[in-house]
């Protein structure tokens, strides 16, 4: 089977040798980076918008271009997160936690290099899994029902939440605010309207992206303004040497890379999505790192972990789409529609009947990842140079981009005003030390977790025992509990360790 995969892969590279396909790949990556940089205009929207334009191409060329857009968007999402604290994509929220502080310290180029390199490694590891384990791994995805999904969401939550320096009551209040906002709109399980107070505008609920653009992006500009400063990273020296210096440091994080890639592949395949993967991976890195105290202040490992996981998840999300027709991410859902439009039926038969297509796509993942990496890496100095633009020029441009981004999420003007309100909330919360991360995580996971939980309850008719009814769901729930009580467990372990030597004396 190994040899078969390898020979199929070479066959795939043969299809790619067509220069037209290579060109589509480059165009796709460039467009994707652009889409990723523009906040609000996510990979899913971008692919959906360009889908009809790929009509006149062959399916292979079309999917190569669309998946290149996808990779490009994954790369691009990190750029604005690091430079301006505005996550271009939901999965780069966790990248802002340490990426933006690095930029503020004049280390934007270092953060960008780390982000791009980690994305590259994450995607590369995921493609290898895809190439050699596709059929086995696809079966695993079927094991996941509502109870298992809830367990995964619980695990994401438990591994991310930990007590920081803030008041625990403020952490709780912020988190609950996130959950409340997530509940606004139509309840997916009973179709009941919650907290819409009779307005059609509120029915779409509070989108995670709009909240994040406001809380992080606009809030950050207001804070910067208050301090009367330009963006502080402007004096950074900009050259390609930083890239090499950063690379020299990255191998020391090999454990983080492997752990994050594993988390990413798992959540991409099952399919939990890139956003929970990035949060979970960041949470795990913070929990197990030797430098955990420094997380949130510009620790390079805090950029490596979420980016690796997000890219691994984004890549492996294509696997259940191809083999089972289950989209592992919103973007994959749109691409799935694309497959059907081109007359290809995803599913177990695709790998047999459409060899050219499947292996052309997999080979293109290898190549477009490398090409994309080179493209974005060469632009690091250019991106970092944006920080040299005086604040009074760049600030209104950023605010305009934020408004455009907030609008494009749902094509709704009210969302722009909501974004501005979130900006003020972000400013107040930051000044009063209410943490924003739990709020955002609750907003992104709240809805999903509640739906999975209630779905599981419907199936079991209200029996909680469904959460330990088989080894898989039981194991994930157990892991979640371990993660939740890790600070306590760590404390006890530390005690035991220090007491032992003392007793020996």
């Amino acid at each position, binding site marked *: 089977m190994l040899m078969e995969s390898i020979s199929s892969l070479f066959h795939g590279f043969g299809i790619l040798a067509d220069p037209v396909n290579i060109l589509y790949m480059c165009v796709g990556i460039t467009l994707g980076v*652009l889409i990723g940089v*523009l906040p609000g*205009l996510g990979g899913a929207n*971008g692919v959906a*918008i*360009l889908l009809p334009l790929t009509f006149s191409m062959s399916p292979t060329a079309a999917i190569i271009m669309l998946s290149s857009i996808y990779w490009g968007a994954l790369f691009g999402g990190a750029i604005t997160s690091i430079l301006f604290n505005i996550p271009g994509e939901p999965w780069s929220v966790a990248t802002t936690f340490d990426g933006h502080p690095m930029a503020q310290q004049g280390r934007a180029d270092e953060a960008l290099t780390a982000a791009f390199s980690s994305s590259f490694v994450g995607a590369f590891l995921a493609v290898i899994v895809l190439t050699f384990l596709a059929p086995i791994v696809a079966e695993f995805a079927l094991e996941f029902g509502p109870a298992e999904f809830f367990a995964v969401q619980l695990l994401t939550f438990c591994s991310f939440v930990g007590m920081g320096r803030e*008041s625990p*009551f*403020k952490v*709780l*209040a912020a988190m*609950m*605010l996130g*959950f*409340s906002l997530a*509940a606004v709109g139509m309840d997916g*399980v*009973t179709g*009941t309207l*919650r*907290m819409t107070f009779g307005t059609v505008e509120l029915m779409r609920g509070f989108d995670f992206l709009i909240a994040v653009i406001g809380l992080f992006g*606009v809030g950050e*500009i*207001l804070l910067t*303004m*208050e301090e*009367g*400063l*330009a963006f502080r990273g*402007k004096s950074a020296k900009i050259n390609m040497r930083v890239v090499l210096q950063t690379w020299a440091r990255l191998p020391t994080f090999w454990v983080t890379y492997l752990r994050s890639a594993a988390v990413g592949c798992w959540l991409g395949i099952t399919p939990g999505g890139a956003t929970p993967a990035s949060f979970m991976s960041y949470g795990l890195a913070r929990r197990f790192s030797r430098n955990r105290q420094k997380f949130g202040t510009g620790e390079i490992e805090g950029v490596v972990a979420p980016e690796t996981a997000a890219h691994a998840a984004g890549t492996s999300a294509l696997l259940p789409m191809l083999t089972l027709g289950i989209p592992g991410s919103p973007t994959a859902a749109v691409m799935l529609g694309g497959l059907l439009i081109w007359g290809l039926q995803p599913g177990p038969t695709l790998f047999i009947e459409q060899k050219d297509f499947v292996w052309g796509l997999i080979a293109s993942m290898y190549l477009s990842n490398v090409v994309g990496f080179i493209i974005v890496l060469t632009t690091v100095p250019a991106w970092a140079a944006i920080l040299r633009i*005086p*604040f*009074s*020029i760049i*600030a*209104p*441009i950023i*605010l*305009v981009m934020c*408004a*455009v981004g907030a*609008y*494009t999420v749902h*094509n709704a*003007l009210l969302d*722009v*005003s909501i974004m*501005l309100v979130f900006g003020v909330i972000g*400013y*107040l*919360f930051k*000044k*009063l030390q*209410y943490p924003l991360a739990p709020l955002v995580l609750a907003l992104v996971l709240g809805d999903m977790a*509640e739906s999975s*939980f*209630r779905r*599981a*309850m419907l199936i079991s008719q*209200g029996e909680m025992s469904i959460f330990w009814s088989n080894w898989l769901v039981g194991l994930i729930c157990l892991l979640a509990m371990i993660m939740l009580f890790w600070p306590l467990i760590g404390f006890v372990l530390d005690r035991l360790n220090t007491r032992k030597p003392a007793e020996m004396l």
Partner: protein
Amino acid sequence: MSDKHDLVPEHKPGQSERTVSTRAMELAVAAALMLVAAVVMSDSWRVGAGWAVDGPQAGYFPFYIGVIMFVASAITFGVHVLTKAPDLSNFVDRSALLLVLKVLAPTVGFVVLIEFVGIYVAAAIFISVFMVWLGSYSLVKAIPVGVAVPAVLFWLFEIMFLIPLPKGPLEAALGY
């Protein structure tokens, strides 16, 4: 870099920097969160906050989320009322607050303007005004930037990606 265009709080001697105390803001935000929590609880109660035979009702989770939020904020509120060493420091200096408002006010204006003239014209005005007013650039510098950014956005969204953004009379006159 052209530092004269960057903003620095101006301290005018003799003028008080006093606005509100941090404690007052803490109380205000905690009270606001309690209010939000109360709204969440009441609406969840309306849609049903019980545990039916087949699992939680639509309002079950939001209701208890509201309860936790209310209690947590009430504790924050109480702590700041009862504390013996209240944080009476200034929440934000007057000059700094003015700078924040100087950004916030035009941004609010920009968002309101979108409704009437569309996002592109509004952006052009917003960027130019911001540069002249806050960055002390001359109009000769501000207008080209103000026009170029929306022009690029127009090309990107309306022509390349075919995403319609809010447009006003100018675009309509041009046939969009």
